[in-house]
């Protein structure tokens, strides 16, 4: 999927968060978004996913405006805190994956992915008994179940330790190698683990820089 962001601006009320952001994400790109808290990283992701209505500028998915876009099953999304998810009611990992799968049966390819992510061992465990790292893996698997074209991850390693972090990022790299487009919000500390192709830095003064790895600043500070 080809994603074109053109002069995107966004504000919560009178507080501007994003100003005139333009960039292009091609199929198979691995884009890392970094910046301090409040720089607008999550707000940008919410615009991309249609949660924040775009009033100024444009986001195009294969030439279709985000406002008219309906094929959201082409996206996999792992949010920062899963605040919307109800953890307290009993639900096993298997049940979660079953209700999150568009088809009733899991194909062998998807079963292999579950095995690779170490989900089989915890398939009958209650979601609320999992550690932060296990939970993260489960949500990645959920996002990947329906074979999306683009995987969006909002600070996915916020609640996992260093060892799990390395495993997590190597899994993301494998998915990228298989041709998946990755958009990942990351802490600066995590950059060393990432084999990204592009990096977008967002600053608190609404400026941004967009660079291709190994290439001089492409669009400069806008």
């Amino acid at each position: 999927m080809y994603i074109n962001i053109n002069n995107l601006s966004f504000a919560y009320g009178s507080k501007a968060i994003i100003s005139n952001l333009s960039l292009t994400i091609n199929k198979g790109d691995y884009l890392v978004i970094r910046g301090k808290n409040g720089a607008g990283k999550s707000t940008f992701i919410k615009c991309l996913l249609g949660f924040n209505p775009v009033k100024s500028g444009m986001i195009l998915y294969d030439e279709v405006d985000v406002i008219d876009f309906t094929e959201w099953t082409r996206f996999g999304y792992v949010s920062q805190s899963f605040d919307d998810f109800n953890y307290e009611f009993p639900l096993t990992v298997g049940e979660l994956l079953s209700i999150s799968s568009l088809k009733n049966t899991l194909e062998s390819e998807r079963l292999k992915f579950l095995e690779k992510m170490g989900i089989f061992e915890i398939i009958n465990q209650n979601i609320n008994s999992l550690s932060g790292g296990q939970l993260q893996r489960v949500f990645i698997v959920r996002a990947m179940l329906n074979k999306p074209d683009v995987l969006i991850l909002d600070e996915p390693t916020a609640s996992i330790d260093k060892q799990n972090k390395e495993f997590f990022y190597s899994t993301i790299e494998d998915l990228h190698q298989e041709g998946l487009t990755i958009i990942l919000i990351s802490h600066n500390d995590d950059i060393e683990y990432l084999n990204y192709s592009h990096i977008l830095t967002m600053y608190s003064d609404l400026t941004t820089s967009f660079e291709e790895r190994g290439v001089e600043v492409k669009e400069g500070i806008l």
Partner: protein
Amino acid sequence: MFLTFITDLFQQDFMLRALIAGIMLGILAPLLGTFVVVRRLSFIADTLGHFSLVGISVSLFLSSVGITIFFERPLYLGIIFSIVGGLLIELFRRSYTNYKEISMVIVISLGAALSAIFFSLSKKTGSLYNYLFGSILTVTNYYIVLILITAFIVALLFILYGKQILAVSFDETNAKFLGINVNLFQFVFIIMLSIVVSVLLESAGVLLISSMMVIPVAAAMKLGWSYKSTLIISIIFSELSVFFGLWLAYSLRIPSGAAIVSINVIILLAIAISKRLKQKIRISKLDKMQ
């Protein structure tokens, strides 16, 4: 006394009707109750019940001024008003996204106020008691048909869309990426809930319907290890409450709804206390080992 109850259950028509209505109530209430609890909308049945009561009070008011079209079946207007109440909840919920309970307080207050006004205007406040507390022992054949049709429709909807309703209930944000039209499912769910609450009103009553939906689920959550097991346990608790509640109501001549809810609460307390005791015993064993 128990044997007389069992004999009468199958020999007396009104008891058999109560048993059938009770079995349906015992399945429908916790089935929808699990979704209501997952979505943290435990007060919604109470709210819809109050708005359904508006429909019933309007029916009585209309018949008092000579419009008798709904006199025989006030439940019809009850269902319509319950749906209106459900839609109002959704409307207010979107204005107060992080304060879902505010929408219910607004609708429940409006429902209570309008019911009081129309009951008063109809001069039939005496019938209010039955609608507030319900009476499963006085249900008619017509009601049995109605509750069976309702159960059939609910079962059909769950067979067709259960997975989607569960996905939206557990994680509204992610449902979009499963290709689910979240707004449509919210709409279908609220209409289904409104109809079920209105139908159950006659047997369970406005004030007790919510407890019949939520308490068996709350008890089952303490024992369940998965969604499926929690649902099955909650239905078992609910059916046990209906059966023993009917027995108590029949034997002691007390309101059936109150008896059923009391048994529900006793089960919940017994489980909560036994779990606590079990935990304490385990901790003391660990302390001794150290």
